[in-house]
């Protein structure tokens, strides 16, 4: 068990290293200077700035500085707001930045996982019933239509036409403000869970040990809740890791729609200001999360499915 985790960790580190290398090279080897085209700077100031950001050093030394800072958990300084630490932008003390995105994603996952599983199990148990067809249609529609379309449409319906929920803003981060964004994310990602669960339970119910359980004369309730649920959930867990990352990314898009002060607005500002260091930091942070979640899912998989243990 511990050996498995260590092995996976050792594999994750070079992956992360190469991601940093690729992103860093892309940013630093493309022509153009981050301070070019700024308001007229005297050569001395420019030189001092370039020195402050280590831009006067050869590529490999710059990379070394960057990696060294990263290992100390420091993303460096923003190119746009000179001297502003990127860590403070992404993880501010008050609510904002990544915390908003995380909050939104967590609320959404709290709805997505149970609703997706319950709907999927029901649809699978009552295969080809009206309910099943309804769920399948729902899945087809909402896995095709992205958050950036459902978001504004829900705002148009619930906020502008019926004035039930606010159209935008974070407020105190309570349910009233976050209801619509969470709904948007839930609609977009419930199908992922639901489809996997439905397929999984249909397969499980047709397997040999369920037939054995039925032959023993166990009641349907015991078969479903005691024997069928656990193996059904294993494939569901394998999609949770990639899904949490896509919910985070989806949350960033949703933030744009609802004007929430999260990573989304940070990314937009960084893109319009050409703040390479900030985009680089957000990209690397996102990759880090992706790898961590995949690792967690692998470990959970390992715990839940005894067949992998050998």
């Amino acid at each position, binding site marked *: 068990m511990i050996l498995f985790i260590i092995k996976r960790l050792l594999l994750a580190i070079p992956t992360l290293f190469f991601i940093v290398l690729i992103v860093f090279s892309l940013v630093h080897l493309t022509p153009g200077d981050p301070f070019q085209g700024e308001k007229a700077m005297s050569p001395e100031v420019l030189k001092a700035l370039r020195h402050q950001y280590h831009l006067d050093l050869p590529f490999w030394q710059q990379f070394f500085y960057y990696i060294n800072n990263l290992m100390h958990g420091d993303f460096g300084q923003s190119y746009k707001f000179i001297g502003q630490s990127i860590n403070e932008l992404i993880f501010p003390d008050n609510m904002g930045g990544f915390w908003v995105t995380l909050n939104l994603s967590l609320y959404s996952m709290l709805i997505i996982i149970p609703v997706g599983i319950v709907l999927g199990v029901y649809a699978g148990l009552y295969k080809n019933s009206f309910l099943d067809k309804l769920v399948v249609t729902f899945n*087809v529609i909402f896995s*095709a*239509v*992205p958050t950036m379309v459902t978001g504004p449409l829900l705002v148009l319906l619930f906020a*502008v036409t019926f004035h039930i929920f606010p159209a935008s803003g974070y407020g105190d981060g309570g349910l009233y403000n976050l209801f619509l964004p969470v709904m948007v994310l839930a609609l977009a990602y419930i199908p992922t869970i639901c489809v996997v669960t439905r397929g999984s339970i249909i397969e499980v119910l047709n397997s040999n040990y369920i037939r054995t359980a039925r032959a023993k004369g166990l009641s349907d309730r015991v078969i479903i809740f005691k024997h069928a649920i656990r193996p059904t959930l294993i494939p569901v867990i394998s999609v949770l890791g990639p899904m949490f990352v896509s919910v985070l990314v989806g949350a*960033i898009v949703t933030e744009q*729609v609802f004007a929430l002060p999260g990573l989304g607005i940070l990314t937009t500002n960084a893109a319009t200001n050409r703040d390479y260091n900030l985009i680089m930091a957000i990209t690397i942070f996102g*990759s880090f999360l*992706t790898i961590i979640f995949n690792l967690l899912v692998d470990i959970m998989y390992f715990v839940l499915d005894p067949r992998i243990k050998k």
Partner: protein
Amino acid sequence: MVKLDKLITDDKIRQKSFWQIVIIRFNSNKLARFSLFFIVILASLTVIIPLVSSYDYSMPDFVNSLEPPSIKHWFGTDGLGRDLFVRTFIGGRITFEIAFMATIAVMCIGIIYGAIAGFVGGIVDTLMMRFVDILYGIPFLFFSILLITLFGQSLFVSFVAIAAISWLDMARVVRGQTIGLRHKEFIEAAILYNLPRWAIIINHIIPNLLGVVIVYLALVVPNMIVLSAVLSFFGLGVMEPMTSWGVLISDGANNMTAWWLLLFPSLMMITTLLAFANIANGLRDALDPR
């Protein structure tokens, strides 16, 4: 030479090629056939309507700004008084252009990369697939935003950025298929025949991958549409006065009192995406009936 195919009229005896069977199966799925028809019509309309319409997509007409839908302006007008109907269709044209160009790029990179990795195998395969794994670790949205900020905002760059991150799945799928094909008799015969590797890949491997690739393409195109639209929400879409569905929707989302600005482009995009989902479904059933 007698053409047997023409003489034998009994359908049961007459041999049908793989692709003929696929077309028949696809056509039997009414929803998928209708969706394909819809997409073809819509794509043609995005070319024709801006040409024949009496309104220009870029000419401001401040007198008629923000008019609700009427007989004169079917979809209403935007803040600069431009006809939304024409703009929706020209936006559709740009959206389709980006999506199809990116899809072609994804297809070429994915097929070549996957086929080489799968066919050559060994250490080359391991290294090539490790590279794919590494790129998988980068969240696609940030990566494309990074690329666009680095290389400047243009139609070409946004399509390259979208393609650059979307070929990974294709490469994986193609590699898997290629490994399955590598030990088939006809490939071994080609190897014994001393054909160069590239010739085997181009003449024998790739044609046999097309089934999987086509199903996959039907999934890639809508993804590209969504991705290009998402980028517009981050202010990285096409530039004014040109437009795309993403730009129209994000403009509409910023001006909700004029509901038509949001509703019509959204409906267009939703129907298009659903049509593609149906086509993908139909193709999968037609090419791979379990």
